[in-house]
């Protein structure tokens, strides 16, 4: 019986091999119970398609994004410089990640510290696989004909102008994509960016994720698609708060594709 493979960079290096792409898992993808499912779904897709990839495994560390955004530049750079040493040591050329915060940091902020890679978000990677016909979608799966709304994550959208790739991925599933009132450049944050994920919100009238969830529910969508671990947590909590968790599920794009592929 052949099983799914998750090679590490170290294993491949010991065999004298270099993968085409490094899958940067990120902390949420490694530790968050809900997002681990996304990591696993994405790894299954990579296996199925036969992409030459590897992960850093225990050698990966936080990119430092939340430290930098909360003002701790020292800690950010400590993390970043150490990660860059590891990646440059393995001569990494291309990185794919399912976290827009890791994506933004590695793509835009590591070059100033000596880390230069081609970095793409998993929504872009999935779109490429679909366009190249490498991912064979059944189109008749769980999502056929369902209404899906996509929540733009700030670090993918406004921060890096990636709006269409995730939408193309969703449309490939033969579903009805419905937009929220605030979408694309006007998309409303889930409330977790800028290190807010790691502290209670400041005093206010309402939590941001509730505001955003209300907007998502107003579309009448059967599911909310996201492309970010923090958004996934915030939207899932929001749907629970509105007691809609039975009717409206929150999925990451990779999960939806894997589901449709029957893996």
């Amino acid at each position, binding site marked *: 019986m*052949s099983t799914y493979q*998750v090679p590490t960079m170290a294993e491949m290096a010991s065999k004298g091999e270099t993968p085409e792409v490094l899958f940067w898992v990120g902390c949420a993808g490694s*530790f968050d119970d809900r997002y681990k499912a996304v990591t696993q779904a994405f790894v299954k897709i990579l296996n199925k398609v036969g992409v030459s990839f590897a992960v850093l495994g225990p050698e990966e560390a936080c990119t430092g994004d939340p430290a930098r955004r909360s003002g701790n530049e*020292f*800690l950010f750079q400590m993390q970043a410089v150490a990660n860059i040493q590891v990646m440059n040591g393995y001569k990494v050329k291309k990185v794919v990640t399912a976290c827009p915060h890791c994506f*933004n940091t590695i793509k835009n902020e590591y070059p100033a510290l000596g880390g230069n890679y081609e970095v793409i978000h998993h929504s872009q990677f999935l779109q490429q696989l679909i366009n190249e016909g490498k991912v064979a979608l059944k189109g008749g799966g769980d999502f056929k004909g369902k209404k899906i709304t996509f929540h733009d994550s700030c670090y993918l959208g406004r921060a890096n102008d990636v709006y269409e790739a995730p939408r193309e991925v969703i449309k490939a599933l033969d579903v009805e994509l419905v937009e929220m009132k605030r979408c694309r450049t006007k998309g409303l944050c889930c409330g977790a960016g800028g290190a807010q994920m790691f502290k209670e919100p*400041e*005093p206010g009238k309402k939590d941001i994720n509730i505001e955003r969830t209300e907007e998502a529910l107003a579309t009448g969508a059967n599911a909310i698609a996201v492309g970010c671990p923090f958004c996934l947590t915030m939207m899932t909590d929001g749907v629970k708060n509105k007691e809609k968790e039975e009717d409206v599920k929150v999925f990451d794009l990779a999960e939806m594709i894997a589901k449709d592929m029957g893996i």
Partner: protein
Amino acid sequence: MSFLPQVLFIAILAVAGVILARRIKFLRRNIMLGKGETRNDQPNERWKTMMLVAFGQQKMFKRFLPAFLHLLIYVGFVVINLEVLEFILDGLLGTHRLFAPILGSVYTVAMNMFEFLAVAVLLACVVFLTRRNVSKVERFTKPEMKGWPTMDANLILVIEIILMMAILTMNATDQILANRGDEHYVALGTLFFSSLIQPLFEGFSNGTLVVIERFAWWFHIVGILAFAVYVTYSKHLHIFLAFPNTWYSNLKPKGEMVNMPEVTNEVNMMLGIPTENASEPPAEIPRFGAKDINDLTWVNVMNAYSCTECGRCTSECPANLTGKKLSPRKIMMDVRDRAEEVGKSLDSGGPRLEDGKSLLGDYITKEELNACTSCNACVEACPVNIDPLSIILNMRRYVAMEESGTPAQWNAMFQNMETSFSPWKFSPQDRFNWAEKVKEEELK
């Protein structure tokens, strides 16, 4: 003929020129209180951005109604200023409608166009006053708008209405006099919009009409000069600063935070990595992040002076929308207010930056800074590419690195990252555990 009006006109023009020059010097110096930053790369892209965003009003049109009305005022401002050129020449030379004989019927067409724009500006200003004071559009009623900012906005609109009325009054009386055969006045054919208000003035004698016409002429030109000076004290500075402000836009991806090389040197030393310029010790230990106006860059301060307080940023800010204290517009207003305060103190020989106050604390609180999700909605929303986020993040750097003043939960997150290389408290050895389950599954 008396030269008195010409002498008076030259005197007024000179006084306005001197005041304006002093004001521009003051503003320039205040902007330069910010730290140096070079943004001259990609000049073609910069000109393009300026033409699209400032000249072409591209980002205004994300909201159609205000954009359309603003466009009328903007075009009116630019085009009617061509007429001001004639005003100034007439004033200097003692002539009347200098261009009319030269341009002939084209002049009449141009005058009709100016009048159309004057009426359009007037109506747009009335709608804007209504939006601010009657229908009270939410973004104009936020706490930071109390007092002077609201007064400033209303004053500008009222002044513009009065200036436009002066043009129409001048043309109406001018043409009545011309049609009555007063040789000093030139009949221009029909001036459509001002002819509509001519009945108001038909009953007056020629002498009275001349007084009204001359008053309207002087009022308009002196009004415009006074308005130009007023603008330098007002949020209305955007009419000029929008252009350099967009030219100096951040052209990098919005998600990128500027690196701090002074930190990189220390980090490399700690990790034992050789650095290129490690042999040069820094002349003085710089302050990390921003506490006051001089820690920001000059682009940040120019951003503040370019802000016209429209509040589109605040109305898109997720923190503000959900009742948090943070308002990106207030951040920009605070930066400007502090720059003005320090600038005035510099001019009067006061304590300058050492007045016991600072941007952080006296203007912007940590609660505001801590509420930001760094989502870039404010940056995206700004019609003139102002970047409040870079100021917020730079001030957070000061709080974290100079004051160790970050919230306790963030300190815990820092500790996790230092000890287990993740913002959550998990053992680094467990980082790869997620793969165990999937490695056992059969590849279908």
